[in-house]
């Protein structure tokens, strides 16, 4: 720094000291939401990186700190992708077509819990849950209805499905077949991220080893047959929802990513190839500056991991492309309209962080499933950011901000510390088994709860600025309990009308393939799905071969 700057700064600091004598600041220490220290002020001398080209660089170039494309949103806006699905395939299909008519540019399918955990709607475990948090899908027949009149070569579809991802992907492929869309024309994403299910989300079925095999089978199959498909969405979203800090979200997500790359490499797959199809999924939380920095840090870290750790040279396989959803746990049941404002800022952080696609939450989600009106507002929020705010007209507008670059580096440092500890333990699978990851998340969650209760953290309308309110007025969506009955009736009809011998044979086939690790399960699953074997039947066979996972509680 020039001596002129130094002098000026010394003078400034002296005057601040005087101000502080008269008026103390609001707090003794300022930190980000995730506990990173925040200075009073950042200036040119606090820019951490001396080497701009190496550490920040240009958009579309390694290490991609400023974005994965050279023109970013000047070329095309992010994909506005609203997660939706409830009740039966018929009702969800209607909602999708509404969303498409409103200008949504990608679908995102929410499945109900029985579907996510591999139970048919008529399974005793499915009682009371059918169609509740998403759409109930039992067989290819439901999937055909779900995408009725939606041409699969025109939309990209993201499916939040993990343990039984192969089965749902197989169904999507078969719907494509029926519409005359070949596999290599399908585009979309399956979440397929089992590790975060063990850590944070809870919809696992099988133990880690066979689960990792199912995942790498999908990697292998899609590299050859469904090249435009994102085979995994490595998700920090749920880790954050479970209570982690921003730095932990990045660390644990990338550590999961490392585990997947290692597993696929062990299978003989080339990270230069499958690396292109890895995608990520992050949360956008309240602390605006920290969030923007988080996305940038994650991008830079992944590029470095892929290049330095795995020797990946293909730039497309070094890029961290990600979907963002605004933070569900930040929504309040109190004064729900305030959530519109929270979502707006979170969405803005995601856009300024360079997201590839975005879901904005609806204001009523702390109360129930979102109504059509609130979903509409959430989507409009994105459109206003895109078309009215102007932030999409230049690439990475906050790049070079003293504080943003500084926080980007702080988060990277902190997250690499966690990853180092996980490496020392023997990798993410061991860290999960030992409860290391869960423990860190739960401690952070508990600490946050305490800070809200002690009012160190203020949540407007919850622990300050409360008002008397009558929420009876809200128009909430309810799923009527007949969904289960309707699904069960459909299943009964299906089981009577399909070729049951073909079903039995193809299930037998899956069983054999499951027992042989050198076999790729995908083609077998596709065959069974085509024969209208149900999801529960297929997962049942796999449960018998693979066993089931029991959670590892650390409290």
């Amino acid at each position, binding site marked *: 720094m020039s001596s002129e700057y130094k002098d000026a700064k010394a003078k400034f600091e002296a005057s601040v000291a005087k101000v502080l004598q008269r008026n103390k600041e609001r707090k003794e220490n300022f930190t980000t939401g995730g506990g990173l220290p925040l200075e009073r002020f950042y200036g040119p001398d606090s820019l951490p990186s001396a080497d701009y080209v190496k550490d920040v660089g240009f958009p579309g170039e390694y290490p991609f700190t400023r974005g994965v494309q050279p023109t970013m949103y000047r070329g095309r806006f992010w994909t506005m992708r609203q997660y939706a699905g409830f009740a039966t395939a018929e009702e969800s299909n209607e909602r999708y077509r509404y969303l498409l008519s409103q200008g949504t540019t990608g679908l995102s399918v929410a499945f109900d819990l029985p579907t996510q955990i591999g139970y048919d709607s008529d399974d005793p475990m499915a009682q009371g849950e059918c169609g509740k948090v998403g759409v109930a899908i039992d067989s290819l027949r439901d999937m055909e209805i779900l995408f009725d009149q939606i041409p699969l070569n025109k939309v990209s579809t993201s499916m939040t499905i993990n343990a039984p991802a192969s089965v749902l992907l197989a169904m999507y492929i078969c719907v494509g077949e029926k519409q005359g869309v070949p596999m290599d024309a399908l585009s979309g994403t399956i979440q397929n991220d089992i590790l975060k299910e063990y850590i944070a989300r809870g919809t696992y079925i099988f*133990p880690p080893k066979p689960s990792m095999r199912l995942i790498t089978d999908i990697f292998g199959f899609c590299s050859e047959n469904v090249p435009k498909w994102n085979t995994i969405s490595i998700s920090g979203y749920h880790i954050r929802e479970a209570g982690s800090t921003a730095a932990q979200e990045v660390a644990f997500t990338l550590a999961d990513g490392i585990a997947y790359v290692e597993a696929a490499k062990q299978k003989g797959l080339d990270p230069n190839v499958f690396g292109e199809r890895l995608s990520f999924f992050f949360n956008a939380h309240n602390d605006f500056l920290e969030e923007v920095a988080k996305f940038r840090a994650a991008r830079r870290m992944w590029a470095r991991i892929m290049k330095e750790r795995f020797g990946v040279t293909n730039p497309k396989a070094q890029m961290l492309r990600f979907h963002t959803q605004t933070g569900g746990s930040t929504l309040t049941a109190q004064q729900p309209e305030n959530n519109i404002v929270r979502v707006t800022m979170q969405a803005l952080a995601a856009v300024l962080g360079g997201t590839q696609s975005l879901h904005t939450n609806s204001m009523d989600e702390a109360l129930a499933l979102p109504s059509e009106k609130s979903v509409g507002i959430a989507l409009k929020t994105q459109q206003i950011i895109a078309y009215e705010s102007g932030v999409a007209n230049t690439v990475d507008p906050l790049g070079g901000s003293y504080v943003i670059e500084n926080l980007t580096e702080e988060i990277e440092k902190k997250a690499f510390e966690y990853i180092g500890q996980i490496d020392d333990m*023997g990798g993410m699978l061991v860290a999960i088994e*030992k409860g290391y990851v869960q423990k860190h998340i739960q401690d952070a969650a508990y600490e946050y709860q305490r800070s809200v209760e002690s009012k160190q953290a203020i949540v407007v309308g919850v622990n300050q600025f409360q008002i008397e309110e009558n929420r009876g007025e809200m128009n909430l969506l309810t799923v009527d309990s007949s969904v289960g009955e309707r699904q069960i009736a459909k299943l009964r009809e299906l089981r009577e009308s399909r070729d049951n011998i073909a079903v039995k044979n193809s299930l037998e086939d899956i069983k054999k393939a499951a027992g042989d690790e050198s076999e790729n399960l995908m083609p077998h699953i596709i065959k069974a799905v085509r024969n209208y074997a149900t999801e529960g039947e297929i997962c049942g066979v796999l449960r018998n071969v693979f*066993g089931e996972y*029991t959670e590892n509680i650390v*409290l």
Partner: protein
Amino acid sequence: MDKLIDKALAGDTRAIARIISLIENGDPVSDAVMRRIYPLTGRAVVIGITGSPGAGKSTLTDKVIESFRKQGKTVGIIAIDPSSPFSGGAILADRIRMQRHTGDDGVYIRSMGTRGSLGGLSRGTREAVLLLDACGKDVIVIETVGVGQSEVDIIKLADTVCVVLVPGMGDDIQIMKAGIMEIADVFAINKADKPGVDRVAAEVRLMLDLVKNRPWTPPVHLTIAENGDGVDEFAESILKHHDFIKNSPEGAKVEYRRLSSEVEDILLKNLSRRTEKIWKNHMSEELMKELAARETNPYLVAADILKKIFPHG
């Protein structure tokens, strides 16, 4: 109270559970309950399962239950977790891994917090075991806290002590230091699909070889509790050891030692309760002042009180 005991003896879950709570809470009726049920005890196979955290004790216990259930035996489990030294509260989460047996009439699972007791057990564990024994459970499994500290109290309760080790956790040495090795009757090296299992097994066998001419040499089993591998054999060894205990002079010695410690413990508990009362009666503001001023001292005061309780020394 008698009605509650009758219900418990008839197998009523809630009655059994309620009595265990009474005992655990130190309710004055406990002694009477124990006197009544004691004649019915002595039939169950009492097993202790100990080992460090992460060794997979609960998962192994889950599979051991399954193994005994296959043989038609009824099973009671006491699963112990640490109580918080700060709040006295506890999160008892061992049963998560055994929840699939909830609903099986032949299985009773009870979680207990240590409530300040050391040595790996909780207050009332002994009585809970006796109660389950009296209520006709064929096998009773005590899963100790497993905090890696010395958990040797289990030998006062269990016929057969099983120590669970696991490769690659780096804590095998800790356990050996803590004196856990000496109390083992059966070993399980769990997670035997992990690298390093042979090394741990060899180390254990080496340690066992140091003692020659044992009447019972603890067998070392490799288990994978997650999928049940090796568990049936492990359970078989437990029963074999139980046979050995019941039919050998060494076994009788163990039994005597245990009964003796039982009497001692009951005496201690009663004495300490009484001591507390006596001291409270004896204590006065004046005495405390004298103590504080060093005009007398705790040793003299205690000797004085003892002389009053035991005038003949």
